[in-house]
Structure formats: C-alpha cells, structure tokens
C-alpha cells in the first residue's frame, strides 16, 4: 500500500500575474486519504484542478500511478502533451467540484450515469442500478428525475458526490465535499470516504472542517500562500503544530 497513486512534485501555477502555487509537493499512496487545509484563497482548489489537469501548471510534475504526465511546451505555454494519457488519468480520478458543476441540462440520474456510460462504456442497466444505489446512499434516491436547478444546495452537493462515486475510480478529489451538508449528512460522507479508503481508493480532500480532516485523514497538508507550511499525520498536525501560522489557524477551532 505504499506505491503513490497521486504524486505532485514542485508544482508551480500562476494566473497571469498572480502566482498561486509556488512549488508544492503532495504524495498520496494507494488507499490513503490526504487532506488539504488552509485559508480561503491559499490555492487548495487550484491544486486539485492541477492534479487532474484542468489547469495547466508552469513547472513541476504530476505523476499518476507511477506514470508522469507528459508535457509539451514550457512556462506559460506548458500543457499536457499526450491526450490519451490525459483521458486515462481523468477516468481514474474523479472530482467533486466546490461549485458542484452538475450538468444543468441533464436530470440527476443522467448526470450520474453519463460518464460511466459514455466514457467507460459500461452496460446501461448495470450503470443505472449502481447510479440509483449511490444516489440512495447519499440520500437523494427520490430526486433521480429532477434537474439540478430544482435541488437544494445540499442535495446538489450529494448528487455531485454520487456522480464521482459512480465512476468507481482509483482515486478521488473532493473539493469541500461537505460545505453544504448538515452534521448528520457530513457524518455520512465521512463514513463513505472511510469506506472508500478501506476499498483501497486514494483520496485528496480539501476541507475547512478540521474535525472531519482529523477523522478521515492519513496525512494532512497545510497550505499557506501557495506553499506547504506544514504537513504530517493528523495527530501531529492538529495536536502539535510546529509553525506559527498553523497554530494561529487552528487556535480558533480549538479554543471554541
């Protein structure tokens, strides 16, 4: 269980003038859950987006299951060079977006079934069964046939999670997967994530919920202003923070 599934090395990323990531290394071995914490705007979402190649980065490497992404060009013109590889990586790496990004023209069930059907070419009946099962699991089995605009925020978020799960990928990227969920559902999601880890799936989770980060993680990374300020097992990070910044960041949580 120690082969890294997701490995990010010395990643640099700028939005024109704004340098968001300034050389970040993250490694997630198979079956491990790595949490990314850090203040708003520190680059957590950007890191996830770079990991599945939605954003082009300017320097550094992304390695998925031992296979490094092939780049073309350099600096601001750098982009993934091997299309087939990119698809291969993405189908094995599902993402739950911070803004959910459900396809607004499809019903919830269609949203969940879409990628398994068209990308993985799985059998329709089987996919439908598993899609319904996942929707039930996240508690919105009764909302199969409505469109995203008719759902509450939490329901949309759960639909987005079901969509990612239904791909049955090797690794998952969660961008604040419980931001719109109540504590009960949050616990459900924590349970789901733990189950997935037990199945051997690898996860990168961005979260603002320290309790959840502590619950689920094998490893916690604290991102600050585009750099990793501190990282380690949850006990170390939360109970014995080394850096000034992390101590400040955590103090509000602990004190309350």
């Amino acid at each position: 269980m120690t082969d890294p599934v997701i490995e990010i090395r010395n990643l640099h990323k700028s939005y024109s003038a704004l340098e968001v990531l300034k050389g970040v290394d993250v490694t997630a071995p198979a079956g491990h859950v790595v949490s990314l914490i850090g203040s708003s705007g520190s680059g957590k979402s950007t890191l996830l987006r770079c990991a599945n190649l939605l954003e082009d980065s300017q320097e550094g490497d992304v390695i998925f299951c031992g296979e490094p992404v092939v780049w073309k060009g350099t600096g601001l013109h750098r982009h993934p060079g091997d299309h087939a590889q990119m698809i291969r990586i993405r189908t094995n790496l599902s993402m739950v977006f911070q803004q959910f990004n459900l396809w607004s023209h499809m019903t919830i069930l269609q949203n969940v079934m879409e990628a398994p059907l068209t990308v993985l070419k799985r059998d329709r009946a089987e996919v439908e069964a598993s899609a319904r099962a996942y929707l039930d699991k996240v508690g919105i089995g009764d909302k199969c046939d409505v469109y995203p605009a008719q759902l509450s925020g939490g329901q949309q978020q759960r639909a987005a999670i079901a969509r990612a799960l239904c791909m049955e990928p090797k690794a998952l990227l969660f961008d604040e997967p419980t931001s719109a969920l109540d504590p009960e559902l949050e616990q459900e999601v924590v349970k789901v994530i733990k189950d997935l880890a037990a199945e051997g799936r690898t996860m990168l989770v961005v979260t603002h919920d320290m309790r959840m980060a502590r619950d689920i993680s094998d490893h916690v990374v604290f991102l600050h202003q585009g750099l990793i300020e501190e990282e380690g097992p949850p006990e170390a990070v939360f109970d014995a923070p080394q850096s000034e910044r992390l101590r400040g960041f955590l103090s509000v949580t602990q004190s309350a």
Partner: protein
Amino acid sequence: MFSFCADPETLESVQWLACYLTTGKHMGFYWSFLTVLTLLAITAPLALIFGFGGAIAARSTIAPLSWFGKGYIAIVRGVPDIAFFLFFVIALDQGIEYLRHKIKCPDWPDTIRQGNDFIVCQAAKMPLGNAPQWVHETYGYFIAVFTFAIVFGAFAGNVLFGAMRAVPKPQIETAEAYGMTRRQSFWRIIVPQMWVYALPGLGNLWMVLIKATPLLFLLGVEDIVYWARELGGTKTPRFTDYPHGDWRVWYFLVLLVFYLAFTRLSEIVLDRVMRRLTAGQATSGGEAQRRAAA
C-alpha cells in the same frame, strides 16, 4: 475628368481605363458606396432601438402592449424583406401623405382615392411637388432607411428578447432581493448581462443587413449593385464612348471585395466588443481568453 479624355477612341489602354473609370456614371457608382454605408450607419442603431422597444413591449405584463410587441416581432419577421419592400414603401408613403392631407387640407372636397389614383392636395405632398430633385431623393432615402429599420428591428427584437431570457434567473432574483424594482433590475442587471447572449445574434443580423443592401434599388435608391449591373452590362458603341463586352463579372468581383472587406472590418469590431464582454466571465469564451492571455 482628364483633359486627354476628349476622344476616347484614340486612347491607349491605360489612359482609356483612366478615362473610363472617371466617367460621370462611375462617379455615381462610387457615390453609391457612400450611400450604402450611410444607410447602414443610420439603419443599424435605428433597428436596434426598434428591436429594443419591441422586446420590452413583448416582455411587458400589460397584455395589449405585450401583444403589440410580440405581433410586431412575429409578423414583420415573417415577411421576406423583398416582398415587404415591394409594397410597404408605397403604402408607407401613401400613409404619410394621407395623414398630412387630413391635417393640412381638412376641407378638401374630393376623395383621396379616385379610381386607381391616390390623390392628396398639393400641400400634403411629401415632399412638395416643386421641391428640387435632391429633396425627393433624400426623402426616398429616409423612407428606405425607415423600412429597413422596421424589418431588421423585428429580428433584433427577437434576438434581444431571447437574450433577456437567457440571463440566469439567480442573477435577477438577487437584484430583486436587494430591493431593486423590476425597472432597476432590468437596466442594471438584465441589460448589461444580455449583451453577451445577444451579441452573436446581433452580429449575425448585422451581417445579414449588410447583405440586404442590394435590395435598396427596390426602394428607389440607386445602390452599388444597380450601378454594377448598369456599368458591367455589354455596351455597344452607339450609346457610349467606351464600348465593352459583358463585364459584369469584374464589377461583381469589385462588389465581392467590397462586401468581404466590410465584413472583415465588422468582424474585427464585433470581436473586440465580444472580448470586452466576456472578459472575466465563467464561460468557455472567457476561459479561452484567459488561457490565451497566459
């Protein structure tokens, strides 16, 4: 034009061409380019205003106004411009004169329709019967502009109506939640946001409008196509000092170049506008721009 043009038959080809291209008829041809461009320059904003009015009327919650707006958009849009031009201009002209007649000559004894004739008192003529030719031409020109604007206004109305509805609901809802009146949220949120959705359609309409200018001749305005046909047709020595065969291909090529160049120019301008509108927006256009800038 040139002094050596006195006897074209003796000229060499270059001089001949110089003389040929500067005949009074060619001057009319060149002038007509200006006519077409001014027509476009006036029609486009006017049509946009008509369209905007139509779209606002169509969105109105007052039933008669909404029917009027929708009727205008649907009916005028339904008639081919050629067919519209073939009878509407005469009808419009008669309508104006009829109104003027009612106002200026209230105690006119005769009926206006006498058999086939349409007769109003002299004072009601538009323009007056003794007005110089340029007044007649200008009047005809503005009737043409107005007609074009009515036709294209209906299409613009449709595009704007659709664009107003394409603005995402939450954006408008938020405005209302902040206490904006319908009027305020219309002007502050819908109108600025709708352009992104409207611009491709309006751009297309502009292209169609440019291409519709050859129909100007149906409205009594001598446009570039009229002159190109006239100049390009076979000319025998009896009626001209510059006889030639069927040169329509060349003249039409000139028109082609003109239209293509004008289109290109329009595209560049529209592109700039679109760029400004999509800057920083969460659409694939805005995204492509961001990536290109990177």
